[in-house]
């Protein structure tokens, strides 16, 4: 046990002289084992237990005389054992506080006597006797690091034969003790190996990470993290060298949010609190004052509840992100695209280690990845067009990507040519991709998707426990490589008997080099081999890693070529495999660049509509179906959509759309709805009469098909003619019926989207009213995913343009959930919600509810949103609120800083925001007090600055606002001085009559100032106004006339003054 005690036990390091055994888990388990050994020693080895130690073990005990019972002479505080050695010395002697013991039997007894103090006793004993073995058996047995010849020496003694009995016992004893030693060592080794040894680099990383949590605001996790020393040694440590020898790396002062600053020592053994090291010097401040933790985060978690709680949240936020992406993935693969520039190809080729590290970074709490809500919005192509900057970036990357790809491929092919067998029709000619359509190579539309580039290499398990399938597959691949056609076909058929849907098998095929062989087989002339190979590739290409590998090996090029084959089996198998592989962008591009789109479109050409089909025709239909499947996959790239159209795919798709078979319709409609993001397709869908078929299929009972149909209508119904067609084909009712499928969220999102877009036509709204759609929609306002909510609210917003519907929404209790949604963060949703709330607010009764729910304040705070669409939509919604709210002036004033906020929005560059804010200001200015406030905020010069616009919508609302703002103080004069009058006169030349009315009113107000009249007159206002006076619009008439009258009056006064 000597070795174990010197090596494994953790002695306090700081103090000199007699060491102390620290209370650490390692020591504790050591002590327990020694205790157990001692306790059982006398019963197990009675003879050895009686052996008298060379020197007694002496230590300071806490035992007292009263603890001892029979077998002992107790005289006062001292105790002597009955048992003596041959010279008559007692084997145990206690003269408090010191005790000396001569044999194991006595040690055992003490341990038994000491009961709950036993651990303390053992510890004290060991602390006092750093090398107990030496004392027990004599100094020659002292523990020496390295060699241990004590046993040998003993053996020699045994041979010499003197004191044979005695020596034999000694030998036994030492063997026993050494056994214990070994046992202790191995146990503590286990414990030690579990410990994490920290390194300076790891600590530094941790500190950096923690520093990133120190921020301002409520969400911060820590207040500050600081090193005590700024100097870093070359080995990465920041402690003084004489502390580095103790393994200490650095000292930190971390201030958590909720407790006192923590003084922490990071050492190789772990991190712990110290006595408060600020400056070097104070010796005892280095001592450990807490348990040892394996890293900083664990320590902080246990010391700061606030930290523990928040760090967990961060962990959670990052981890939870993944599944949601997965879900969206099904239809909306396009999601991540815009935010994320393409990664270069080389990137994914990096080794597993690198990958793992990246994942680690991602999983670290507080990673930078941001959540983007409702990606659906982008995907539809209805939102703003994509960023140009992003596009450029992707171009740049595409270049390097291509370069790397080419090189990689050359290498791959070359590798394979070595392994391919002579005599076999090998196809190892290097395929140089490209040379086709130079510009085509670059720039992929950013609306398309890139799936799971990250997860492409997940396998980290070692080769130790490969499943039996692996070896069987390896054997089959060997036969594939070395067999003639017959053997190859047998091996292929046998391979298909494995569960190819299972990842182990898929990856096994790849890992034993099976993919290369399978793809090479496609280049041979043997139809059977090709079919067999495709049947396998078709299955395993459901795995994303396999897809990439197939693309990397040039499999797509070969499969595209196979599409020309006269054999129908080959055609449809190749098409189906392409459909699986072309799930990521690079693959889709490869298909297009090698003429795959055109060939796939050609596959669609068959006669599907006859009811009874011959065997051959059935195969044609299967070929067409797989062609559609492949096009569906490919159609996620914008350029491919265009290529499909150019290849004449639209009329063929239109024909297949009449097919009675669901399995044909799903890929066809899937392709159509994917392509419907393009205007050309939307027009074609409308003009080729596809709406009718889409509507017809809304009535089928396949949810997936229904979803794609609804989604296609959703995208196409932006167009008025299409909306009318949907109504005429009686598609509105099935849409409403589909709302009952509330469990299928994708279907629900598509359906509500279609209803929303169809509701833009008032005739459709009337129909929906008949079908009681709004009642159902209101029910969908709660507990729905955002992509559904966006559409539901959008539909309600459109529906609420009709007064009757506004009442319906109120009666169904829709106002409250709508107002609640104003607190959301999804911008697409906010645009729709504000619109809906605004539409509802035009009804007095609704307004009362909105007011009660403090909806106007919520709308107002949305003016602070970063997105101009939200700002504008909120400002528009505010207008009817101010108009219809009771005491609206008072209400508006109650929003602290609200008026300043809205006036400042006049600095926006977005026309829609400006128009909406002008409209709102016109409403606000009706209240005199508020008008005074906004005048103070400088509304007049800001409005005047906007007057040069040519946008009629803005002109109209701007003129309204100016008309209203003239009502206060010297604002009229100020407008004139700011040069607002002349531009306003020009508004009268606008073609928009609503601009005329507002402008005439503004001019009428301004004409009350003589200088303005002069300006107007100089700009030829009279002639224009005379025309307006003839208008049928009475308001316009009156304003124009009033203005002319004012000008005339001034002229008269002038004449009078002049002539007298």
């Amino acid at each position, binding site marked *: 046990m000597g070795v174990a005690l010197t090596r494994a036990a953790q002695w306090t390091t700081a103090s000199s002289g007699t060491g102390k055994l620290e209370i650490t888990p390692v020591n504790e388990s050591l002590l327990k084992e020694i205790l157990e050994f001692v306790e059982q020693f006398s019963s197990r080895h009675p003879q050895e237990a009686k052996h008298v130690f060379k020197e007694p073990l002496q230590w300071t005990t806490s035992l007292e005389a009263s603890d001892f019972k029979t077998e002992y002479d107790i005289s006062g505080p001292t105790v002597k054992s009955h048992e003596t050695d041959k010279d008559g010395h007692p084997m145990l002697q206690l003269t408090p506080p010191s005790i000396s013991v001569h044999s194991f039997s006595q040690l055992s007894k003490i341990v038994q006597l000491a009961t709950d103090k036993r651990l303390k006793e053992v510890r004290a004993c060991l602390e006092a006797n750093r090398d107990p073995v030496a004392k027990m058996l004599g100094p020659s047995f002292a523990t020496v690091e390295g060699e241990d010849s004590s046993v040998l020496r003993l053996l020699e003694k045994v041979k010499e034969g003197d004191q044979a009995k005695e020596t034999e016992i000694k030998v036994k004893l030492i063997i026993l003790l050494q056994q214990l030693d070994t046992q202790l060592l191995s146990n503590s080794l286990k414990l030690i190996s579990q410990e994490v040894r920290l390194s300076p680099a790891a600590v530094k990383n941790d500190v950096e990470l923690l520093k990133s949590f120190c921020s301002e605001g409520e969400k911060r996790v820590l207040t500050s993290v600081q090193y005590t020393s700024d100097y870093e040694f070359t080995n990465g440590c920041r402690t003084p060298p004489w502390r580095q020898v103790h393994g200490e790396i650095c000292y930190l002062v971390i201030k958590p949010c909720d407790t006192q600053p923590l003084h922490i020592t990071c050492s190789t053994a772990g991190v712990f609190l110290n006595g408060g090291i600020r400056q070097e010097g104070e010796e005892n401040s280095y001592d450990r004052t807490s348990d040892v933790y394996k890293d900083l985060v664990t320590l902080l978690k246990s010391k700061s509840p606030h930290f523990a709680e928040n760090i967990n949240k961060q962990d959670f936020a990052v981890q939870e992100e993944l599944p949601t992406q997965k879900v969206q993935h099904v239809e909306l693969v396009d999601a991540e695209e815009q935010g994320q520039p393409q990664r270069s190809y080389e990137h994914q080729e990096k080794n597993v280690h690198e990958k793992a590290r990246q994942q680690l970074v991602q999983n670290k709490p507080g990673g930078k990845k941001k959540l983007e809500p409702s990606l659906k919005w982008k995907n539809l192509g209805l939102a703003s067009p994509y960023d140009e900057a992003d596009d450029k970036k992707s171009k740049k990357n595409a270049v390097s990507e291509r370069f790397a790809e080419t090189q990689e491929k050359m290498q791959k092919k070359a590798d394979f040519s070595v392994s391919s067998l002579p005599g076999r029709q090998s196809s190892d000619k290097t395929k140089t991709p490209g040379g086709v359509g130079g510009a085509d190579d670059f720039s992929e539309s950013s609306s398309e998707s890139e799936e799971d580039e990250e997860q492409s290499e997940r396998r980290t398990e070692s080769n130790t426990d490969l499943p039996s399938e692996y070896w069987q597959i390896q*054997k089959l691949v060997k*036969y594939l490589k*070395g*067999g*003639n056609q*017959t053997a190859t076909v*047998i091996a292929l*058929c*046998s391979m*298909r008997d494995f569960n190819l849907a299972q990842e182990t098998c898929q990856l096994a095929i790849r890992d034993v080099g099976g993919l290369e062989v399978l793809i090479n087989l496609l280049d041979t002339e043997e139809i059977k081999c090709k079919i067999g190979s495709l049947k396998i590739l078709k299955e395993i290409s459901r795995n994303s890693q396999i897809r990439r590998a197939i693309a990397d090996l040039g499999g797509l090029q070969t499969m595209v070529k196979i599409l020309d084959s006269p054999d129908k089996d080959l055609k449809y198998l190749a098409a189906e495999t392409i459909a699986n592989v072309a799930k990521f962008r690079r693959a889709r591009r490869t298909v297009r660049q090698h003429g795959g789109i055109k060939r796939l479109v050609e596959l669609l050409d068959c006669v599907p509509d006859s009811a009874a089909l011959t065997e051959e025709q059935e195969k044609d239909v299967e070929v067409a179906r797989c062609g559609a499947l492949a096009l569906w996959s490919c159609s996620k790239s914008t350029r491919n959509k265009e290529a499909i159209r150019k290849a004449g795919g639209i009329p063929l798709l239109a024909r297949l759309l009449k097919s009675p078979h669901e399995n044909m319709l799903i890929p066809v409609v899937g392709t159509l709805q994917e392509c419907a993001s393009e205007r050309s397709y939307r027009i074609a869908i409308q003009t080729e009469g596809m709406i009718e078929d889409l509507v017809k299929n809304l009535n089928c009972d396949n949810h997936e098909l229904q979803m794609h149909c609804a989604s296609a209508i959703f995208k196409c119904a932006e167009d008025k003619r299409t909306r009318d067609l949907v109504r005429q084909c009686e598609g509105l009712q099935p849409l409403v019926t589909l709302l009952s499928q509330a469990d299928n969220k994708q279907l629900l999102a598509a359906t509500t989207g279609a209803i929303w877009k169809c509701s833009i036509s008032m005739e459709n709204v009337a129909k929906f009213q008949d079908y009681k759609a709004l009642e159902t929609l209101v029910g969908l306002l709660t507990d729905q995913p955002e992509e559904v909510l966006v559409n539901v609210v959008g539909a309600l917003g459109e529906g609420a343009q009709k007064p009757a519907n506004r009442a319906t929404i109120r009666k169904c209790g829709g106002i409250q959930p709508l107002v609640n949604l104003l607190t959301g963060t999804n911008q697409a949703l906010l645009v729709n919600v504000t619109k809906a709330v605004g539409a509802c607010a035009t009804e007095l009764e609704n307004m009362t509810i909105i007011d009660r729910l403090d909806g106007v304040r919520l709308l107002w705070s949305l003016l602070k949103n970063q997105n101009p669409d939200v700002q504008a939509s909120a400002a528009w919604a505010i207008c009817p609120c101010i108009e219809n709210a009771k005491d609206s002036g008072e209400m508006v004033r109650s929003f602290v800083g609200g008026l300043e906020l809205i006036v400042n929005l006049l600095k926006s560059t977005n026309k829609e925001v400006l128009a909406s804010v002008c409209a709102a200001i016109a409403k606000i200015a009706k209240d005199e007090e508020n008008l005074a406030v906004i005048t103070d905020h400088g509304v007049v010069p800001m409005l005047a600055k906007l007057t040069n616009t040519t946008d009629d919508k803005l002109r109209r609302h701007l003129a309204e606002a100016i008309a209203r703002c003239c009502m206060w103080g010297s604002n009229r004069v100020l407008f004139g001085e700011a040069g607002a009058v002349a531009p306003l006169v020009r508004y009268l030349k606008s073609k928009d009559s609503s601009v005329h009315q507002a402008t005439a009113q503004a001019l009428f107000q301004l004409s009350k100032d003589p200088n303005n009249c002069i300006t107007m007159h100089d700009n030829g206002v009279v002639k224009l106004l005379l025309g307006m006076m003839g208008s049928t619009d009475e308001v316009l008439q009156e304003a124009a006339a009033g203005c002319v009258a004012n000008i005339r009056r001034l002229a008269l006064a002038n004449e009078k003054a002049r002539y007298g």
Partner: protein
Amino acid sequence: MAEMSAMNRKLIQNLAETLSKQVKHFNKTEAECLIRLFNGLLGDQSDRRVGNGLDRGKFRNILHNTFGMTDDMIMDRVFRAFDKDNDSYVSVKEWIEGLSIFLRGTLDEKIKYCFDVYDLNGDGYISREEMFHMLKNSLIRQPTEEDPDEGIKDLVEITLKKMDHDHDSRLSYADFEKAVRDENLLLEAFGTCLPDAKSILAFEQHAFQDTLER
């Protein structure tokens, strides 16, 4: 000579008519073309005795040159399958019947035909030994391997595992038929004994169009 060929033509036409009624996949004109081709192939075979036809050598030449077959044993078996009366000659009737399956056979006919080809001893079963025999040249032998036949044996086991549904270690016709129906690729499991689409097309073009034009 002209009389002779006129009579000959008459004869051929009659024969074609009868044969085209007996054989499924050829019409009369096609049968006639095939007969002409047969006669052409027979060529100047010295002794034109009745019942004679193409001998083994000639037939194997056709299989090799026209249909690209290479395996000697399989070609022998194909000859046997054509030569239904076992007289070592393929008669004109056997020729047309054989080609009917060879070129245009249905899956059922082909299964039957292939089974006959593979059942080397004609006992109605394809035994382990027969399989081994037919597959023995199907793998490239690695000189490093201890037992060069190991791969073949394994291949036989794989095939049995896949096709031997009643687990009697040999393939009955029922086993074979079921396996092929499940997976058409297994039709020619033990060696190529049917022409591929390309050579069929080439042969038919040669036989039906070129012969007519002549």
